[in-house]
């Protein structure tokens, strides 16, 4: 197998900003993303509602290191102060390097 590596950036945040967040990510160079619905607890309290306002999403973006850092930086500046959000990154081995 190809032994190519990319960054996997995972963001957990409020569903309320899904549309904006994904648009930002694409603008900054992500070629794709995956979203799952989630609930959780963090510094901004419990977020586990079935109804919109207090539910979370978990977004994954597979991209090169530079893009991941650019997105992370942007999210920190634009959303971190006012929204419930955490993010983390790791290196993953991928199959079709030309895709990301």
């Amino acid at each position: 197998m190809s032994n190519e590596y990319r960054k996997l950036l995972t963001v957990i945040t409020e569903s309320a900003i899904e549309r904006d967040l994904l648009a930002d990510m694409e603008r900054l160079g992500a070629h794709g993303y995956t979203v799952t619905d989630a609930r959780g607890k963090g510094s901004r309290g419990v977020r586990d509602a079935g109804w919109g306002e207090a539910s979370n999403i978990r977004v994954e973006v597979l991209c090169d290191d530079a893009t991941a850092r650019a997105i992370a930086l942007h999210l920190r500046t634009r959303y971190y102060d006012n929204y419930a959000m955490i993010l983390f990154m790791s290196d993953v081995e991928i199959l079709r390097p030309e895709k990301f």
Partner: protein
Amino acid sequence: MPALDPVVLFFLLGLAAGLARADLRLPGAIYEFLSMVLLLAIGLKGGVELARQSPVELLPQLGAVLLMGIVLPLAAYPVLRWRLARPDAASIAAHYGSVSVGTFAVAVAFLASQGVVYEAHIPVFVVLLEMPAIMVGILLARGMGRQTDWKRLGHEVFLGKGVVLMGGGLLIGWAAGPEGMRPLGGLFFDLFKGFLALFLLEMGLIAASQMASLRRHGAFLVVFGIVMPLLSALVGGWVGWLLGLSVGGTALFATLAASASYIAVPAAMRLAVPEANPTLSLAASLGVTFPFNVLVGVPLYLDLARLIHRLGA
């Protein structure tokens, strides 16, 4: 005070279950379904009634409604500012200037059970009243600056679930008329009160979950969450009477004024005034004002409407 309507008992059941931390939750998809059907049903009902009458007298009233949607949050803001940061005060003011469709549905069910009639076109006001307070709230938080993405926001406001479904329901009901709507009545009219009961069960559970934040954010929100609707109801009742509404219509109008949004406004504020803490506004709106209106307010506003009409006559 008349006996509690059974739908209110469902709210109390949800509240009690929530406070006892019972293992009970309406699935998110069902909550969404119920609120969609209630919004459509209110719109359809209004539309069907509009189809029966000439809509000419409606037009002058709309201006008054819009004005009220602007004045109420402007009046609430300085009071809130006394204790809260600017974005929070602005956001909460927007919540209380807008309306709660759930509260409106309870009032409609209450009037029906009391045999009180009301003007058919009130749902038009509900759609309309959802919006201006959001604009006011953003201006209060931001000033006239250019920071806000008004296009994005206008989209959020005018194409939110509430406006689309209630507005769309109005149009469909009006176009289809009473005859055309009959085969749809099984779902939208006959089940209305049952769906409302389930919705209120979940609202009780949600209100209970807000109690923790309430405890943390102190007495100010509780007092505000009770006094504000009472004063707004006075304004709303008075405006309703000025507009020549019937007793039932006046009571509904007072209820609209007294109710605080928990769907459209939170979503819009989260995007436009992100530095406002959503916990504060939801705790007040869902944890104090919604229960207060459902349990105490709605019957009170009918009494108020009767009083205003007696005094006015």
